[in-house]
């Protein structure tokens, strides 16, 4: 599927702001599941833009505006072709035991997904060693979707996972962290993915960046599971990057001086054609 | 040689705050003493002082009354008054803390001791008739501080910034004193001998408040003549607290700074030179009678120099 994404972030300040530094993670990843046809980053006012590849392989852009300004716009435009994602091959859960070191990063606790008995907390039945792993993961996705309620007002960026667990109301960030907690506890390497969703209006989380989980299946590799929409991450999911958790992939973060109480406006448009 | 903008700013403000503390202490002392003998006319002797330091509204709000006691407390110890002696010393010390590794330890210790003595007092001082001592202590401490600075601080750029702050504050302060006194001169009342005597007393207070009484008498053999006093305090080139002297020394300090960064900030020097020229060639009659230049304008000139210093050295980038 061909997707065109426009992601616009605008800041308006009542008083001049200066020394604005921004780290932008909006460049879609180049992987087997998608091809990036083009990517452009526009910034108003003129800014110095550099980039580097971060620890998780994402291309990070640095936008720096030194002079005083009352308006800052960062606009990313991307053209991405997503490819069909085949169903995963069956593999028993027990195969996970054979995994060697390279997946430790996505098995250990991280600040927003701390150690805990998440399977118990979210009432997930542990799989038996002989159970089929992809099936289990799909069931888990469904289970979490049914359990949680999508509510944009219930949580904030810093709401701890334990608190979300108590009421189960939140957004894709929370749903994804929950899935990561369960998967990691059960020894399934799992990572947080930030990206876009082409919804054509029917799926939740569109018109914004989206988050889902990727789990590692021996024999298949990393596969995306979207607990917010109870589905695999296939052609409608455009991936930007992955990390241990939200803070590794936050789309735009920055600092600035002055400015007073600024206003933030974000617009995401995802167009698609088969 | 390098000087961080922040440190230059600290030194500049130490100069201003310590000078402010000293000036306020002098003024307060003199006016308090004078007002003791004026009974019903106390208000007149206090008004200008309040105008000088501002804050009558806050004073009234906080103390509920405007009298010798409340004014003294407000100007001396009250930390809610940003221009009180205590506040000035407090700010000076705060600025000095950041400089501890660069100023001689005696300078810091002197300031710190002053802080401990002066900033923790309250109206009890007035109750035990201790205002005179309090003010003298503050004034002496300021002079001691500048004395140590003069003796031990290397004559580098930092020194010039402190001196610039001190001189800016001095000129500014003297202009305000003259402004408030000048406003309250009532030429008509001079006909009446009693009124005349009161006026004279007030002008004597002005002189004493600037530690200028003896110097004036030596220099100007005429009696208490407001015009001559005004001239002395504004334009005398030898009296170290005159406005002209302050402007000249301010200019010298800025010229020194310019030597470290030749030609980098011509605006600063230009404004300082302009101010000096005005004062070198002015006649007191023009200033006091015809408002040409008016005292207000001169005050404005001083402030413009201050703003230019800030923009040039402290605020860039």
């Amino acid at each position: 599927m061909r997707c065109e994404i426009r992601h616009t972030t605008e800041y308006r300040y009542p008083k001049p702001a200066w020394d604005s530094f921004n780290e932008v993670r909006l460049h879609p990843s180049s992987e087997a599941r998608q091809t990036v046809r083009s990517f452009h980053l526009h910034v108003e006012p003129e800014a110095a833009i550099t980039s580097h590849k971060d620890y998780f392989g994402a291309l990070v852009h640095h936008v720096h505006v030194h002079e005083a300004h009352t308006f800052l716009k960062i606009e990313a435009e991307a053209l991405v072709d997503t490819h069909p994602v085949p169903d995963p091959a069956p593999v028993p859960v027990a195969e996970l035991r054979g995994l060697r070191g390279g997946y430790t990063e996505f098995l250990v606790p991280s600040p927003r997904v701390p150690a805990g008995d998440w399977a118990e907390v979210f009432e997930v039945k542990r799989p038996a060693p002989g159970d089929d792993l992809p099936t289990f993961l799909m069931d888990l996705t469904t289970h979490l979707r049914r359990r949680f309620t999508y509510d944009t007002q219930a949580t904030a960026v810093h709401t701890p996972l334990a608190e979300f667990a108590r009421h189960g109301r939140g957004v894709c960030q929370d749903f994804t962290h929950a899935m990561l907690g369960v998967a990691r506890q059960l020894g399934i390497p799992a990572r947080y993915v930030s990206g876009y969703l082409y919804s054509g209006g029917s799926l939740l989380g569109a018109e914004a960046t989206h988050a889902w989980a990727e789990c590692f299946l021996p024999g298949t590799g990393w596969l995306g599971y979207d607990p917010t929409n109870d589905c695999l991450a296939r052609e409608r999911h455009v991936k930007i990057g992955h990390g241990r958790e939200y803070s590794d992939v936050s789309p735009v973060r920055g600092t600035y001086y002055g400015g007073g109480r600024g206003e933030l406006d974000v617009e995401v448009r995802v167009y698609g054609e088969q | 040689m390098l000087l961080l903008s922040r440190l230059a700013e600290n030194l500049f403000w130490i100069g201003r705050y310590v000078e402010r503390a000293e000036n306020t202490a002098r003024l307060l002392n003199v006016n308090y003493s004078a007002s003791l003998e004026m009974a019903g006319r106390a208000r007149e002797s206090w008004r200008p002082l309040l105008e000088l330091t501002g804050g009558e509204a806050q004073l009234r709000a906080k103390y509920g009354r405007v009298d010798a006691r409340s004014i003294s407390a407000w100007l001396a110890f009250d930390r809610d008054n940003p221009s009180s002696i205590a506040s000035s010393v407090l700010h000076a010390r705060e600025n000095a803390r950041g400089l501890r590794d660069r100023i001689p330890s005696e300078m810091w210790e002197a300031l710190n001791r002053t802080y401990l003595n002066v900033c923790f007092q309250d109206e009890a001082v007035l109750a035990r008739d201790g205002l005179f001592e309090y003010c003298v202590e503050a004034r002496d401490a300021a002079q001691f501080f500048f004395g140590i600075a003069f003796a031990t601080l290397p004559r580098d750029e930092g020194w010039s910034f402190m001196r610039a702050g001190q001189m800016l504050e001095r000129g500014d302060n003297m202009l305000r004193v003259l402004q408030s006194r000048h406003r309250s001169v009532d030429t008509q009342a001079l006909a009446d001998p009693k009124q005349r005597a009161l006026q004279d007393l007030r002008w004597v207070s002005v002189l004493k408040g600037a530690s200028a009484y003896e110097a004036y008498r030596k220099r100007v053999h005429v009696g208490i003549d407001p015009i001559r006093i005004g001239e002395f305090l504004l334009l005398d080139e030898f009296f170290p607290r005159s406005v002209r002297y302050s402007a000249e020394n301010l200019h010298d300090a800025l010229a020194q700074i310019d030597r470290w960064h030749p030609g980098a900030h011509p605006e600063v020097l230009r404004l300082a030179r302009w101010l000096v020229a005005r004062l070198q060639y002015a006649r007191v009659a023009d200033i006091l009678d015809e408002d040409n230049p008016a005292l207000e304008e001169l005050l404005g000139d001083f402030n413009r120099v201050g703003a230019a210093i800030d923009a040039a050295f402290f605020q860039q980038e």
Partner: protein
Amino acid sequence: MRYEPGNRFFDEMFTQSGNVRPHYQGVQEYIGQQGVAEFERRHRLLDLAFRNQGITFTVYGDALGTERTFPFDPVPRVIPAGEWAHLEAGLTQRVRALNAFLNDIYSDAQILGDGVIPSELVYTSAHFRREVHGVKVSQGLYTHIVGTDLIRNELGEYLVLEDNLRSPSGVSYLLANRQAMTRIYPGMFEGQGVRPVGHYTTALLALLQSVSPRENGTVVVLTPGMYNSAYFEHAYLAQQMGVELVEGRDLFVDAGRVWMRTTGGRQQVDVIYRRVDDDFLDPLTFRPDSALGVAGLVEVYRQGRVAIANAIGTGVADDKAVYAYVPDMIRYYLNETPLLNNVPTYLGWNPDQLEYMLANAGDLVFKAVGEAGGYGMLLGPYATREEVDTYLEKVRANPREFIAQPVVGLSRHPTFYPDTGEFEPAHVDLRPYILCGQDVTIVPGGLTRVALRRGSLVVNSSQGGGSKDTWVLDHDGPATPQGMSQLWHGDGLGQSQTQSQYQGGFGSAPLGQGQSQTQGGQSQSQSQLGGGNQTQSQSQSRRYDRVQADAQDWGTPPEAASSPEDAPGQHSFQQELAKDELGGDSRAGEDR
């Protein structure tokens, strides 16, 4: 000056039979000649000297700004040449291994791939900074300035208690102590062959300059500011090196470089000796609420246009759990046997060791791996049942975050107590300062900290600790008035025969030098406990007194100053966070 040292603790000056060790004879004689009254008089002079020099610290929270001098005891701690040579070689080995480890961890992590250290320990360390992974540092140096805490156990063996690789402090006290001592007690030094320490700041400056990306680069010292308890040291070092002392707000990033705000305009900065923790260095990359750092600094660092000492991310190697593996690092990277051993350490992360820790809590000292300054500790033998239970709950909840060690009885040293006019033994430790450049340079001696409260093992300054001058002699035996050269090889008074390498000054110690133990002569078994094996160097059943290690920085860690809402503070945001705080569109932004 004499007392019965007893046989419970190792005494630095006296042997078990009460004889003075050869390297202390000079000091013994001098003090004996002095007499207590004179000693007391000079003690007061010392305090005055410190005060005049400004070697004081402001007690946190004291609005009056009263300053205290650091308690200082004038009886110097003496280390003979041979002993020092051993320490030097061991420390050199250790820091080389630590630097190799850091290089490895922030690139290919071969040591993890080879399974020498569990990768979980590294990946879950709060100080493992993925943001600087892959950054090339000058000369492969990650940690330039190391403060390693050494203690001496009951048998007189030196053990490493911990390495401090982020912002070790205290060297200014070391320098000030020596200066005060030479002024007040010049006679004590005569003919003793004490090696000088004053080169430290010269060597430090040379080291900092050597890592500059540009030639003749500008070096600055970055301090959190005057409210930090170690501020005196930051200012002192900057002044001694002749470089600027800056705070975060004096710097800014533009055009890919770091600049200083001066009255002459912007000035480029090439090397930052930072005494600010990673977390507060750059609000863009790390804690957004930090007002102590410089926005955009890390990106300049990534691009190689500014050097930072110690480098970002060194904290992963002084994590208390990783500490247990340093001997393995020495073997892995250097192919050598560690010359200095660790204190035996149990890791909560390891299930078998965790079991042992929980079962024997009453005999162990527990530490939280992330904490500094003696916080988060449990002293098993001295805690109540309740305290132990409460603490163990935390351990069970988060075992990776805790380690435990048997209590080690620190060595003792004669210390003057003015209230009794007597010399009594007090517990001491030692923190040498290691400069890691092309060569490794170690100040002879280091800071000896002494627990001044009677019977206490707490050497931490904020809890009644003080310090002593530390002497490294250029010989092993007693001094004679004529000088040292004939005593080059010691005179057979039972000390080790290893040679010191040089007379005056200090230079690098070559690697691979086999050293025999100085006292006791026991070969020490491996201190690190991996794979469930526990080898102990001393019997564990004896009840020892407390030990408490000091912090990274001598005092509480730098606090993040809260910035006011509007300028001159700064705003940070992650997009959603900003959306929460700012007025504006109610449209759901980002991935929420």
